[in-house]
């Protein structure tokens, strides 16, 4: 076996965004020897990019709000496909997690009487998002990072994990490499928490950073975990579209929460034409009512600008396709004509800065141009709501790498709260599992050496494929064929394309050495991306309906049959995928009643 640097812990957390940090904190507080591993430097994970806020029914702004309303909004936003128990725990526990962040040093914006201020967001009935201007994710990650450091948790930064190790059918650890040297590292652990985040880098237009390559989704599949809802990919309605180099960068929903409105090229507020029946009763049907709603919740219904993200993304897509888009293929997002410049700068400082610096647009004077951008994976590893446990003993998960919490579409603001609610639970679950084991599971050294060989392969051989080119081709393939609007034939074309890329990926050639070599890192990530792209495409083929973040031209309506099932995808050891439909967990009657009231 190759020369591995070896470490042993009780609990190994992979990923240091909000979920991973919160999991590691919990595990350490519970007395387990805990380590956290991340691909970037500590504090740079994608959580840092979250802008608008963290959803929690604190009831500081509207006393009518409570966990039941939040639960109901979340389930309806997810088109009822959510794991009800996750949605319930999330709504119940989010307020405590927000207060905990405050205790650890987070400084949220305040109400007049000094409590945590909350803002409006899509799909949330009441102003519910605790926030810090439009840089809430930064506040959250820094707060958790400092807490983690204070607890003395071992941090392995710029280390990429490439495989989980198993002992029979339970987890035994993980292998990876230091990015700065290429040196191989082997972790032996009693429990592993996957908190690796998303997979947006599989699509061409995305808000995700280089890290969002679906590693954790792939690692889970290699280890035999069940994946659910992989067909549901959220295209955030508002990404930047111009200039091309910033295409996809996120524009917070907070712009609309704070009064911004979407317009097409003739200035029309087109969202009024796209109100789906499910939300008609609670959505304003005139501009006058929508504008009144910002100040008067009693007598006006909410603006359709704040429909759930899937609805808004589809509407924008339809406007652009109909030739009513903005000059650069998006639509206009206008807050300049609707709110004073001072207000905009105070509420949305980083949007102001971002457009000014990167697009030369002053958002207090001109409208922004925006369009959908691949943002978030609803699907992922199937986990137990209470503990984050997967079907593989010792393997836990939290955050975007898991599925179930958000159903077919996630509401804005429900991600940051998901991270801390289920990060804590997964940390607890993993710590309890580890505490119940006498010894670290045995190590199968053949697994580790197999990883070593596959990682070295790109340096050897006489292949000529460039990893950057293959990645770009995969992104274009998925964008065109498995994007916002899908059809059977397009998705079959995608599968064929993925197979071709997989074959070419065996001939990837990497230049240079093992020290901080991004081309090599990408070559390794590429294998994960191909696996995840195939799982997502196969799941999407299976779901013959349109729902949430999965819209099919050939099955444009939601189906009663598919309303009852998750699509589950598994990967066998030989690389073959199997896809099946499995019944959703049944919601208890007292919760069901919440949906009968209207």
């Amino acid at each position, binding site marked *: 076996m190759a020369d591995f640097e070896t470490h042993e812990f009780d609990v190994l957390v992979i990923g240091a965004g909000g979920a991973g940090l919160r999991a590691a904190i919990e595990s350490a507080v519970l007395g387990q020897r805990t380590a956290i591993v991340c691909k970037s430097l500590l504090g740079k994970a994608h959580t840092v990019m979250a802008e608008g806020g963290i959803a929690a029914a604190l009831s500081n702004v509207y006393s009518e709000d409570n966990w039941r309303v939040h639960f109901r909004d979340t389930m309806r936003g997810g088109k009822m496909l959510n794991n009800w128990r996750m949605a319930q725990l999330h709504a119940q526990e989010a307020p405590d997690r927000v207060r905990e962040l405050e205790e650890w040093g987070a400084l949220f914006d305040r109400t007049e009487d000094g409590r945590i201020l909350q803002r409006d967001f899509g799909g949330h009935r009441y102003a519910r998002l605790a926030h810090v201007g439009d840089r809430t994710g930064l506040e959250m990650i820094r707060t958790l990072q400092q807490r983690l450091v204070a607890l003395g948790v071992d941090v392995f930064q710029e280390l990429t994990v490439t495989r989980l190790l198993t002992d029979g059918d339970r987890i035994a650890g993980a292998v990876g490499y230091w990015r700065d040297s290429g040196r191989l590292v082997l972790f032996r652990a009693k429990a592993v928490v996957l908190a690796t985040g998303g997979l947006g880098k599989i699509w061409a237009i995305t808000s995700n950073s280089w890290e969002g390559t679906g590693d954790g989704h792939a690692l889970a599949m290699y280890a035999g975990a069940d994946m659910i809802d992989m067909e549901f990919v959220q295209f955030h309605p508002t990404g930047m579209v111009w200039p091309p180099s910033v295409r996809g960068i996120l524009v917070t929903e907070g712009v609309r929460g704070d009064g911004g409105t979407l317009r097409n090229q003739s200035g029309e507020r087109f969202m009024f034409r796209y109100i789906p029946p499910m939300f008609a009763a609670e959505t304003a049907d005139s501009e006058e009512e929508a504008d009144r709603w910002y100040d008067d919740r009693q007598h006006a219904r909410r603006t359709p600008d704040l429909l759930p993200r899937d609805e808004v993304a589809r509407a924008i897509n339809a406007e652009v396709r109909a030739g009513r888009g903005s000059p650069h293929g998006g639509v206009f997002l206008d807050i300049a004509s609707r709110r004073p410049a001072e207000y905009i700068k105070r509420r949305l400082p980083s949007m102001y800065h971002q457009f000014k610096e990167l697009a030369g647009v002053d958002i207090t004077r001109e409208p922004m141009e925006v369009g959908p951008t691949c943002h978030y994976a609803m699907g992922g590893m199937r986990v137990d709501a209470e503990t984050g446990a997967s079907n593989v003993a010792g393997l836990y998960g939290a955050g975007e790498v898991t599925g179930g919490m958000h159903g077919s579409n996630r509401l804005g603001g429900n991600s940051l709260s998901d991270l801390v609610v289920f990060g804590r639970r997964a940390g607890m679950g993993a710590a309890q599992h580890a505490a119940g084991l006498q010894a670290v599971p045995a190590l199968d050294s053949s697994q580790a050496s197999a990883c070593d060989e596959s990682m070295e392969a790109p340096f050897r051989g006489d292949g000529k494929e460039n990893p950057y080119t293959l990645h770009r081709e995969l992104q274009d393939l998925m964008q065109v064929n498995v994007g916002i609007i899908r059809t059977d034939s397009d998705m079959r074309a995608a599968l064929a394309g993925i197979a071709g890329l997989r074959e070419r990926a065996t001939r990837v050639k*990497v230049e240079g050495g093992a020290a901080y070599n991004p081309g090599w890192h990408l070559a390794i990530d590429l294998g994960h991306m191909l696996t995840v792209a195939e799982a997502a495409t196969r799941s999407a083929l299976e779901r013959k309906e349109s729902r949430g973040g999965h819209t099919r031209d050939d099955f444009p309506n939601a189906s009663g049959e598919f309303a009852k099932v998750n699509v589950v995808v598994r990967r066998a050891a030989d690389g073959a995928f199997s896809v099946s439909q499995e019944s959703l967990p049944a919601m208890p009657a007292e919760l069901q009643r919440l949906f009968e009231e209207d």
Partner: protein
Amino acid sequence: MPTAHLRVWRGTDDGEYVEYEVEYDEGMVVLDVVHRLQATQTPDLAVRWNCKAGKCGSCSAEINGKPRLQCMQRMELYPEGETITLAPLKTFPIIRDLVTNVAWNYDQARAMPELRLRPADADGNRRMAQIDIDRGQEFHKCIECYICQDVCHVIRDHPENMAGFAGPRFFVQLASIAMHPLDTNTRRATVDHGFGLDYCNITKCCTDVCPEGIHITDNAIIPLKERRVDEFHDPLRIIARKLTGRG
């Protein structure tokens, strides 16, 4: 398509500048050009980045000798045809190409004192007026790009000073702890451990480069220096200040 003439540091300490020509598109930032270089000519070129929107602080490098975020420097800022020189941050050891070893900063982070807030009110809330946290929120804008650490002359050419000096980024963190209106963890923040505040002679170089526009010197360092003097001489005053939440 315009063409950028780049001189990029390649290798480690004993590396060298290598010149490249890269075509670029309207609206691109320096980081885009570096990525295009990577994808088309130098697949192993080492560079850090994450957000590409000035929010994560990963992509710091010295552009024409000035430390900047590569993702926030539009190509229009540089006259076409002139060579743009890209180098790693000078104050930290080079790992490879544009990537430096910033572990020293994480060591400083480990030495920071913790907050200990007063218990919450009976209803579970903690009340703080917006005006009392405005300053703290300014400090929390820090994206840990370490550009201020890079320019600070206390350490830029004096690695021997790094042992006893936390640097402007961490003075900002200390100030944020010291000025938290509900903190009860008195004195430890600045008094027991000086964090090298005395080395700083208020040149404001750090403030000038902070991409987040944090007034590091005026709002963090100078008040900390004043407190340090106060706290040494008048422990009662600091306790009173903590109790009233006024600084």
